[in-house]
């Protein structure tokens, strides 16, 4: 009982979440309202205080606004308002029934093909392909013309001529779904094929088909109108299509005869299409572009006017480090909130050294990297801070000036090299293009020579320059990325998860090579990663980041041996060996903290085993543990830290 209740509740929550995200868009909301109103009118039409849509009154061609005829009358003196409303009844029926037939056939054939595979799939896929090639509208035209235009036949025909598309969608859905773990589990538990299909696969594969169905609903109404125009509408029902076509011959006398049903039809078809869009966005969130809600600008200062309130380190002051970040603060606009992704971060580095920036995903470490190289997403805003490279401020300079720093002095290696390279261009060309961008006077040949040199440097055969990214192994692609970063011999490289998604052996190899290169070329390296072992291996110093803040910074060895922040200890504390299995941060229970608005107390409180009232109410200061090691924990200097995860893991 309890279980059922929970399940129901979970479902309800899931639906609420879906509904919120679905109705987030204003056009979707308006569309839903339109469909709701039309549906309501259509369903209640027989009881509404409107004349019979078929009844002849006394006044033909009464214009809109005539008493008793809000939308006027038609050539047979029938009330237009009533006809438009009754037309909605037919329109919605056509939409729902046609789309229903279409997706029912589509789901059935698509899931059979996808589920059983083999020759069944071969045959059904061929059938789907064949029917996709037959012009559907003409087939509909033929059938309706041959067998007589009854609305029922029209609906069936629209359904029967449009099923291949949902079938195709369903097939690919089933293909993906059937290998999912839960389906496999159900299969091992003894579920039959039909049970698997009916309870596990089809219900989960249906959402994109539903999206397709809303689009079909719109087009079904249009097809009915098209058939009506060609004289193939069912005269025994009041449909918008037939009203528009009939209105064409009375355009001069009574334009409202085709205008009102036209508007009604346009609204409903648009609404169906927009709802389809809305559903699509929810199902494929990627297609929803990041943007800043216009109403959100208020609490923030525009990106360019960066305020400098009471800073001791004024930007004019020349820093003594080679590379320094000071007070970097950055926000993301997420739905209705500004999230502080990077909060007053300051870091320093000496030339030729390496710094590891570690933290779980979403902690803001990547945002720092992106801020440095200026490729922030559209919804990000840098609020404050300075960055100095080789004695020069580079954060608050115009793009054009920064272009001289970019790649020449500072470059970046991105995570997931598979996607970081253009899939449709040979890798060599991509590098040469980049070279020529920064060395506009260099010939193509010079570019090629430089790239060949780099390929040698990172151990890729030169012949691979002509290869496309997908033709290279993961390690090879990562080496290309490294070569790209080294292209213009920069002083500083920011490497964002350079080894993620590679297997352990290659990972070590790449890190090793990177280390060698760093030594050889006297590079400074910022290594951003969630993987503690990577940092341990290759960084002189380590900064641990949590919820937008650096919570502890110091020499890597010290942090690994004796972290003075409970989070550090949880993150880095017990690496069994450098080559052994990785310890992921997920082992720290609880969800990551999202800094929104004013924050009181330590951000780690909720997950911290040592949290006290002090932690909950007072923001911990930076506590210097030694000269080059500090921690943002009230208890950084206390022994109790060492017991942080003693019992748990």
């Amino acid at each position: 009982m309890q279980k059922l209740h929970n399940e129901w509740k979970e479902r309800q929550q899931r639906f609420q979440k879906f509904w919120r995200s679905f109705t987030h868009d204003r056009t979707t909301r308006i569309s839903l309202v339109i469909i709701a109103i039309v549906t309501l009118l259509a369903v209640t039409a027989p009881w509404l205080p409107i004349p019979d849509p078929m009844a002849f009154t006394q006044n033909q061609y009464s214009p809109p606004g005539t008493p008793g005829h809000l939308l006027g009358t038609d050539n047979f003196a029938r009330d237009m308002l009533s006809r438009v409303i009754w037309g909605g009844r037919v329109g919605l029926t056509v939409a729902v029934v046609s789309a229903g037939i279409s997706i029912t056939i589509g789901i059935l054939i698509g899931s059979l093909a996808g589920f059983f595979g083999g020759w069944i799939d071969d045959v059904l896929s061929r059938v789907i392909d064949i029917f996709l090639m037959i012009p559907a509208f003409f087939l509909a035209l033929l059938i309706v013309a041959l067998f007589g235009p009854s609305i029922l036949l029209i609906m069936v025909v629209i359904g029967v001529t449009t099923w291949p598309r949902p079938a195709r969608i369903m097939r690919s859905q089933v293909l993906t779904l059937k290998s999912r773990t839960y389906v496999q589990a159900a299969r091992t538990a003894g579920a039959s094929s039909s049970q698997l299909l009916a309870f596990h696969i089809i219900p989960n594969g249906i959402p994109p088909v539903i999206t397709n169905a809303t689009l079909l609903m719109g087009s079904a109404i249009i097809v009915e109108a098209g058939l009506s125009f060609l004289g193939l509408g069912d005269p025994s029902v009041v449909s918008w299509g037939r009203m528009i076509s009939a209105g064409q011959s009375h355009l001069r006398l009574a334009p409202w005869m085709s205008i009102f049903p036209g508007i009604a039809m346009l609204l409903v078809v648009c609404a169906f299409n927009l709802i389809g869009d809305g559903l699509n966005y929810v199902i494929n969130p990627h297609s929803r572009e990041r943007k800043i809600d216009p109403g959100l600008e208020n609490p923030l200062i525009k990106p360019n006017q960066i305020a400098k309130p009471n800073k001791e380190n004024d930007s004019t002051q020349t820093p003594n480090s080679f590379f320094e970040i000071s007070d970097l603060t950055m926000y993301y606009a997420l739905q209705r909130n500004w999230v502080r992704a990077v909060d007053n971060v300051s870091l320093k580095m000496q030339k030729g050294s390496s710094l590891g920036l570690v933290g779980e995903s979403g902690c803001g470490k990547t945002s720092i990297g992106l801020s440095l190289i200026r490729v922030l997403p559209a919804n990000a805003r840098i609020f404050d801070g300075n960055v100095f490279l080789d004695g020069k401020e580079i954060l608050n300079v115009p793009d054009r000036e920064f272009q001289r720093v970019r790649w020449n002095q500072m470059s970046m290696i991105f995570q997931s090299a598979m996607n970081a390279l253009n899939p449709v261009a040979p890798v060599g060309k991509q590098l040469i293009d980049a070279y020529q961008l920064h060395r506009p006077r260099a010939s193509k040949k010079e570019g090629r020579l430089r790239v060949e040199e780099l390929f040698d440097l990172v151990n890729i055969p030169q012949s691979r320059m002509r290869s496309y990214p997908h033709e290279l192994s993961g390690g090879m692609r990562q080496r290309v990325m490294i070569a790209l970063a080294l292209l213009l011999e920069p002083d500083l490289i920011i490497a964002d998860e350079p080894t993620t998604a590679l297997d352990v052996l290659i990972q070590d190899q790449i890190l090793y090579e990177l280390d060698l290169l760093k030594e050889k070329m006297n590079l400074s390296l910022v290594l951003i990663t969630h993987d503690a072992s990577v940092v341990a291996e290759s960084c002189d110093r380590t900064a641990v980041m949590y919820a937008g803040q650096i919570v502890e910074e110091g020499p890597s060895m010290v942090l690994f041996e004796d972290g003075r922040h409970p989070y550090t200890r949880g993150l880095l504390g017990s690496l069994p060996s450098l080559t052994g299995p990785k310890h992921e941060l997920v082992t720290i229970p609880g969800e990551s903290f999202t800094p929104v608005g004013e924050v009181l107390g330590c951000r780690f409180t909720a997950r911290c085993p040592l949290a006290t009232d002090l932690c909950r109410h007072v923001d911990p200061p930076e506590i210097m543990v030694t000269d080059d090691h500090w921690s943002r924990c009230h208890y950084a200097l206390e022994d109790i830290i060492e017991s942080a995860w003693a019992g748990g893991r």
Partner: protein
Amino acid sequence: MGRWLGILFLISVLAVAGCGPQAAVPPPEEEVILTYAVQNDAETMSPNTHGQRGGGYVVFANLYSALMTLDWGITVGTTHYGDLAETWDVDPTGQLYTFNLYQNAVWHDGEPVTSADVKYTYERMIDRNYPFSTFLADVKEISTPDDHTVVIELTEPNVAFLPMMAQAANWYGKIMPKHVWGDGEWDEGPGMENPIGSGPFKFAEWEKGSYVVLEAFDDYFRGRADVDKVIVRTMPEATIVQSEFRAGNIEWLPNQFSPAFGEIDEYRADPDVEVVETGSHYNYDVWINVAHEPLNDPRVRHAIAYAINADEINQLAFSNVWIPCRYAGLPLSQFTNKNVEFPAFDPDRAEELFEEAGLPRGAGGWRFDLELIEPGFSTTTAMAEILVEQFKAVGINARWIPTDHTIYGEYLDQKNYQMTIYYTRYGPDPDAYREHFATGGPRVSNNYSNPQLDELAAAARVTTDLDERIRLYGEIQEIIVQDAPIVSIFNEVKVTLVETGWTGFAEQESGFNQSLGWSCVYNVKPPNR
């Protein structure tokens, strides 16, 4: 790349837009061009092998000649008159027809038109069972005593022979040149696209799907036409044809393109447009299938007649332009028996009759179900839309089953509809009563049969005495009104729009009895001629 596409787009827009002014090339001033529209393209230029649709007939009417012809002059009394036949004569037995052809008639290639061509044409039609053979069914022999005389002998007297063949000549029955076709089939060969006729216009150009151009034939035997060029455009959409007419690109808007009846007053007020209303020998009626339960009961058919409100239909569908008609015949015809009429609108009487016939209102208030079909003309669909509601008012659960022309034809052929709106043709000869009502007649689609009527119709066909015929047909009409296998509603009125000043169109009085068919424009004259 973006710039490249942008430029390309700009160029194409400019290229397309730039050509505006040049496009309207004015025709040479002195040339008289007449343009009008047909709904469907002609299928071939060979007229006789099968029934065509509008496009073909309209072209053939100008390209070819028939032996005898007929036009809307029928509404003022003239049925048939000669086309190629200058004079004709029927012998007293009513079986021997002698036609004297115009001596100066020539084909478009210069060869003379001779009696051999007529014999060749008719014999081929009979041999191949081409559609016109229906009207030559009684022919026994065709002989040609000389080059310009044709004698046709019938197996039995038939008063309707000439009027019927004259009417059918509007569709097919065009005389074909023997020297061109010879033994070749009429639906093969170069004549399919480069036709040789003997009509007032000769073939010039056929842009398939778009238009046919005809030119006045200088050596036409009645004298050259006043119109130099005829352009027949294929235009499917009536609204657009009306637009072209208003734009002045079309001079003649025949019935099938005429605008909504509601707009007619507006056109009447327009000095540039002449609204021509032409009567016709067609009535629009309801045909009731007497083989169908419960329509087999005459009381039910009478009740249906009482349920029809012709005035309402006339107002709503035809803006009172049509003529309600309750005679079993044409309002103006001398053969119409004006003493008998179908019942006038009286819904209460209708309901009484239904009760009498044992058809009380049942579930939902319905007495019985009824399917109504119609041929799909704009006029008949409008009638159907209203009739269905009128029937519903007296408790008939009527449903309108739309059909296209082919399916409609099949319904008539199979005689398996319940009720249809039909165009009953009371001409060109009153022998039409036999066609429509005598047992097994070619236009009897409702299984109606009355032996008494059959006898009267057979007798009326063979007598040439006018008074006798009027009496016999009068009796037939009494029977029809009594049995009510049909219910008359309207006499058709054709509404044609003509650009002011043009005269001689078949629908205009200036075109009566000399138009050489419904679609021939030989007689048409431009303004100020």
